[in-house]
């Protein structure tokens, strides 16, 4: 195939202990480390491996978000993406609108494969890939732990509750990545320097003419309920009795 599109969302780093703001308007993000959403990093790694095997010519990284997301894309370029596109907006953007933006880019770029993380670790929505596949009228293979390309089709192993499911999908298609698909490479300093010369196009979201979608509004945030301290039992018999009382064994 010629092109692979990869989505890179800028999200609060995996290791940050997220706290809810006192006024309930959101979570604290001031001074908080931001990174590529880990699932998206895996998606990019997979695209790079496909290209390195000679099965694709170009990997294009796309982010939809604020100006700061350029840093996220630069990291993606340093990992090995050939070029990047930032669809810039300072407003919150919902999954359906994200899918519509991706579809517009698909119409311009005609990729053979779109690789997205299965979910972002901030909103935990797990929607954009599936929505994009629906709007595009193409196959989806979500939660991928293995991708094998065979010309016009791909075999994708998916991590499902029952175990590992394999589906065959005609290309082009949307594949969303799970954690065990690969281990992303580390970025080396010379690659960061090289990435500065790669093309990063910034396009305002308003230029895309995306229809506004009915938005789910976020009324307030709160910390999760704390667990109450429980009771100590004296022995295994006491434990089993307590579990039986709760209908758990």
């Amino acid at each position, binding site marked *: 195939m010629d092109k692979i599109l990869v989505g890179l969302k800028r999200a609060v780093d995996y290791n940050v202990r*997220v706290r809810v703001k006192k006024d309930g308007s959101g*979570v604290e993000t001031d001074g908080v480390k931001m990174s590529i959403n880990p699932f998206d990093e895996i998606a990019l790694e997979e695209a790079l491996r496909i290209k390195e095997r000679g099965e694709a010519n170009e990997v294009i990284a796309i982010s939809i978000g604020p100006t700061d997301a350029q840093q996220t894309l630069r990291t993606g370029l340093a990992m090995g993406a050939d070029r990047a596109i930032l669809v810039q907006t300072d407003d919150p953007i919902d*999954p*359906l609108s994200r899918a519509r933006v991706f579809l517009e880019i698909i119409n311009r770029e005609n990729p053979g494969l779109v690789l997205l993380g299965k979910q972002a*670790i*901030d909103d*935990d*929505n*797990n*929607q*954009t890939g*599936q*929505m*994009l*596949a*629906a*709007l595009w*009228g193409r196959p*989806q*293979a*979500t939660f991928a732990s293995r991708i094998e390309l065979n010309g016009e089709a791909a075999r994708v192993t*998916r*991590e*499902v*509750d*029952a175990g*590992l*499911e394999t*589906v*065959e*999908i005609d290309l082009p298609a949307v594949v969303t990545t799970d954690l*065990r698909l690969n281990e992303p490479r580390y970025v080396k300093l010379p690659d960061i320097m090289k990435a500065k010369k790669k093309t990063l196009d910034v396009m305002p979201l308003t230029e895309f003419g995306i229809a506004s*979608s*009915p*938005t*789910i*509004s*976020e009324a*307030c*945030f*709160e*910390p*999760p309920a704390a*667990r109450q*301290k*429980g*009771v*100590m*039992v*004296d*022995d*295994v018999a*006491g*434990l*089993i009795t*307590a*579990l039986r009382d*709760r209908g*758990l*064994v």
Partner: protein
Amino acid sequence: MENILVIAEHDGIHLNPSTAKCVACASAIDAGNIDVAVLASSAGAIAAEAARLDGVGKVLTVENAANEHVLAAVLAPQIAALADDYAYVFGPSTTFGKDLMPRVAALLGVNQISDIMSVDGPHTFKRPVYAGNAIVTVEAPVGYPVVATVRSASYKAVGDGNSAAIESRDITVDIPTHTRFIEVQTGSSDRPDLQTAAKVVSGGRAIGSSDNFDIIFALADKLGAGVGASRAAVDAGYVPNEMQVGQTGKIIAPDLYIAIGISGAIQHLTGIKDAGTIVAINKDEEAPIFEVADLGLVADLFKAVQEFTDAL
């Protein structure tokens, strides 16, 4: 009237327990009928199980050879066609529902509410974000269908004393052939999947070795439980990394979580704080795991686990 459609999850033979939890969530909405849709190649037995769920108005069956395997691209257009008569379309927040429901939502032109954990009003719901470190109250737009997944761990299954009517529906939509089921491999054991198991037994570094982990597996098998591990146990090489529970591993919410020889580092607790009942067995009575455990037992883990397993 504002009716609710619940999409049944099944394996072609039996209804998945997640469906009864979706019906429980639907029952919390002050709306009209709750109907369950069974899309299958042969829906009869599954529909009969769904018809017994308390609170269900009727069961709709959509039979088509293409529905033999669960493929979102195949099911979504059929569900979108059914959804015309409904104000709400719910599916479980399992890999089945997570794969399928956003595709349905996009076809209906709406965003999805992922992982409903409580219903606060006809269009007001709570859901977890940031791996459960924050809970957000969301408002779905009025005048549009509400497509949602229901966080299974937040609901108890409804009872099965009902006898709802079963109606067959013919749906004429184009069903794509671009996505084909090849196979499903269910792990080498019959153990439930860690992330969706109703019960999970986990072992920590105190288990001491890979061989010793057999006692955890034996207890889990008696309970019909999935098996997890702390990061310390994974780092020590006792079990593979896909079994890791916690901030850098899997975030789980089983009805019953049994932590054995796990001290309860904050990173581990993040992964289990939504469990229904947490049991801790540890010889150190100062272990932080006891701060969050509903039931705690200070004991030698090898003796206690053996006794526990024998008693079941």
